[in-house]
């Protein structure tokens, strides 16, 4: 048996990794979303409502929440088409804050007081989802659909001129990313068994982006590396006491200076998985 402390760290890593993956999927098409905590919040509240109030089993609740958030993601994907770079980042940030303040004022789900009553889930269940989705996205990365995603990221104009529907690709990525974020949110709610709007604020969105940038923004398993680091580093740096956050910040700056693509990139991932190296 692993200790409660370690189980909690493991659960946090799994949930953070899913959140990071949701950012990664959208980023893969060249769109930076700073509002994924919003999708996470939708998933958390909806899944909690479905298990606590409607009495549905958790797995079904998570699937339904993912579908609902996916649709919201597609709706957000349309206006996002008109925005690029920093403007898109600001607009998605606005979306995230919108969701947070909605739940803050939404009394049926507790408003500012939060919502509870969920049944606690095991670490194993969390990692079943986290591992499953990570494997799914990693496999998807070898498909031609993912080549279309990378083409959209690399040069959208050239991609459209070779016949790729970049609009559908970008909107689809928003939908898929939102669905994954919702699963992360639903698991978060049933791990902590209590949620409040502040759980899904701006800082959460930043944390998700940070995990991707740190772990590696060109391969899906980068989200795993980033999530584990973000969860474990603050723990292992405890001996630095009050200097912990400063040390953490320094480390982040160093990684970005040395490896802009993050710790794990395509070359390293290929080497680690013994796939055929470029000749």
């Amino acid at each position, binding site marked *: 048996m692993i200790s409660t402390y370690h189980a909690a760290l493991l659960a946090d890593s799994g949930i953070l990794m899913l959140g990071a993956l949701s950012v990664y999927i959208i980023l893969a098409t060249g769109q930076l979303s700073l509002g994924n905590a919003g999708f996470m919040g939708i998933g958390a509240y909806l899944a909690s409502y479905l298990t606590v109030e409607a009495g549905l089993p958790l797995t079904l609740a998570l699937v339904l929440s993912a579908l609902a958030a996916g649709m919201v993601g597609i709706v957000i994907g349309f206006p996002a088409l008109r925005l690029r770079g920093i403007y898109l980042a600001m607009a998605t940030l606005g979306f995230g804050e919108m969701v947070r303040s909605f739940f803050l004022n939404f009394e049926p789900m507790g408003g500012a007081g939060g919502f509870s009553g969920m049944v606690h889930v095991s670490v194993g269940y969390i990692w079943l989802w986290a591992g499953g989705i990570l494997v799914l996205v990693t496999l998807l990365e070898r*498909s031609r659909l993912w080549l279309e995603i990378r083409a959209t990221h690399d040069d959208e104009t050239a991609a459209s001129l070779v016949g790729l529907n970049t609009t559908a690709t970008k909107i689809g990525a928003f939908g898929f990313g939102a669905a994954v974020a919702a699963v992360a949110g639903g698991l978060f709610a049933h791990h902590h068994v209590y949620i409040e709007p502040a759980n899904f604020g701006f800082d959460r969105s930043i944390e998700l982006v940070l995990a991707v940038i740190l772990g590696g923004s060109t391969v899906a398993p980068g989200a795993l590396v980033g999530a584990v680091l973000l969860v474990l580093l603050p723990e292992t740096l405890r001996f630095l006491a009050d200097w912990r956050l400063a040390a953490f910040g320094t480390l982040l700056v160093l990684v970005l200076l040395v490896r802009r693509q993050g710790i794990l990139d395509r070359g390293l991932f290929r080497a680690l998985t013994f796939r055929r190296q470029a000749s």
Partner: protein
Amino acid sequence: MSTMPAPLLSLVDVTRTFGGVQALSGVSLDVAAGRITGVIGPNGAGKTTLFNVITGAYTPTAGEIYLDGARLTGLKPYQIARAGIARTFQNIRLFSSMSVWEHLLVAQRHDGSVFGRLLPAGLARSKAGREAEKALVFFGLEKVRDRPARELPYGTQRKVEMARALTANPRLLLLDEPIAGMSHEEADELRHLLMRLRADGLTILLIEHDMTFVMNLCDRIHVLDFGRQIAHGTPEAVRTDPAVLDAYLGADT
């Protein structure tokens, strides 16, 4: 050339203005199926604008464009590409994260169902994998198959771009200055590749500044100057056309 084959691409009175400037004014031209057609003209004549209008990057301010009788005007670039028009760019545009092999897979419409696209890309057995292999051999890119395309020499990058365009299985291939920056040998090799493609029935429309290359290769030539078509015909006819000589030699009037 006693009989003209039916036109594959037709531009009817196409005009494109930017602000007050007419980049193209009233250009009408037919591109014959199975032939190589050249577009020449001094800098700023509107040649690249012509390509951008054909591929849907710009919509024409006026006029119509047809591919084999079907109206293309107003379609989105990806729809025009799927209708059968592929292009290369004057300043090469490759995908920065992709290897040569990945460039040959990304544009293919084979196994185009959602399920087909979810399978691992470029399996040797798949139709897409075989098509990519064919393109690799045709352009002699086997040795650089897994290299990032952006790290290759300039001439090779041009070939990758052309190979990517061809894997989309186009009926019409637009080449924007295909031999710019190429060595003499590379240009000659490319000329032979283009003649092989023509023999296979592909229709090609190309912009090129190198007159020897254009005159040796093209079946017909259209000459643009200040957005207007000032001459068209066989290379021999265009070479001696007074309006063309005037535009190129810049006779001051």
